[in-house]
């Protein structure tokens, strides 16, 4: 929690003194999993993004609430070895201006080290929209998860999860790099249901401009049937 508070303070300090664009957003999400067989699993995701405040540059315009988009996704994953998953998925994004389609491929490795679970996620994505070039992205995320009671997270127990992700994007002649950091607190209600809450800081568009700082407030639910 201290890390989240520090991140929040740092974001507001940055908001006042830099030329960068700043945004404050929320993105709740829900992920539903259904085991198709001993190896295959289907996950359906729902999420929605809202913009609460935006400031352009040091003394630029300040705007208020705006609904941005909603996502629906479906991913098919297959177990590869112990706690490793390979997955392919499709995401549909509905914006005010139209629909965006995204194909994604991911490989996730999870290792257990006593009370720590450490995951490495590698991914590629192709995003198609009605009037723009196809965007290609490659990403890597490292995410440690620590049980706050005992060596494993049991039902009715809290845990901490942090993620750090790097995203490289190419669209037409433009390239971009995005860095994401996200501390979260999670609670496991039953073996199949968990909720996580936290903040995600994203920094991008710094290759050609002063950059864009975004802070997301998130609430994520995971349920397995």
């Amino acid at each position: 929690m201290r890390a989240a508070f520090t991140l929040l303070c740092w974001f507001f300090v940055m908001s006042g003194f830099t030329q960068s664009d700043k945004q404050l957003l929320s993105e709740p999400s829900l992920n539903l999993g259904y085991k198709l067989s001993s190896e295959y699993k289907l996950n359906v995701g729902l999420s929605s993004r809202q913009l609460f405040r935006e400031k352009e540059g040091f003394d630029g315009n300040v705007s208020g609430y705006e609904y941005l988009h909603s996502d629906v996704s479906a991913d098919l994953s297959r177990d590869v070895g112990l706690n490793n998953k390979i997955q392919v998925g499709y995401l549909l994004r509905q914006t005010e201006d139209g629909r965006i389609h995204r194909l994604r491929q991911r490989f996730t490795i999870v290792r257990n080290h006593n009370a720590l679970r450490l995951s490495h996620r590698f991914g590629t994505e192709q995003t198609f929209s009605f009037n723009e070039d196809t965007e290609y992205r490659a990403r890597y995320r490292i995410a440690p998860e620590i049980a706050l009671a005992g060596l494993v997270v049991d039902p009715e127990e809290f845990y901490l999860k942090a993620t750090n992700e790097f995203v490289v994007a190419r669209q037409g002649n433009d390239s971009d790099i995005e860095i994401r950091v996200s501390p979260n607190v999670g609670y496991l209600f039953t073996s199949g249901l968990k909720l996580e809450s936290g903040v995600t800081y994203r920094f991008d568009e710094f290759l050609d401009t002063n950059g864009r700082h975004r802070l997301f407030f998130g609430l994520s639910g995971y349920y397995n049937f």
Partner: protein
Amino acid sequence: MTFGKHILSVFIILLVSVSNTLGQQKVEREYKLDEAEVPLKARNQIDVFELESKFKWYKERGIDETTIEAKGCSAVGFISIEFTEAGDLIDAELDVKMDVIPDEIWQNISGFLDESYLKWTIRKIQLQYQGNTSQIHTQLISTTPFQPNEPYYEIVLKARNEDGVELYELLFDAEGQFLKQSTIIFGPIDNLQF
């Protein structure tokens, strides 16, 4: 906009339904214990070992029994000492490398693994000692892990059979003969995958 509101509705339903699902519980659970919560009898026995690091205490609740475990580092490696709820010693387990196991015993163990699985990899080996505090203490400061007591062997391994890959915990006796096997179950990793 409407779609976003629908997602919010799903969240509210999820949160409300949580109270109905709290009754389902996993059979085996583990809790971290403060030292003050540990039975005095168990704490006194730990002092005998005069170990290098401070112990961490856990309570493990299973189907038939609840045990207290102390985990920590000793001069001979990482050890785990298990007690009953009343504080009576059950056994002690010492983490070791594979090459510590005598060849003839290892042949029995590996022969069993070759017959049982298509492919296997050792993740952890523990020597398991039973006896009273004094016997186990003597054992841990002994120059050899096989005298005066012969240990059992508890092995955690990743193995593949016809149903896929699993993590197993197996127990072998002092001769390397198989005694029992249990499958280690992991919770879903959805939150690390998405």
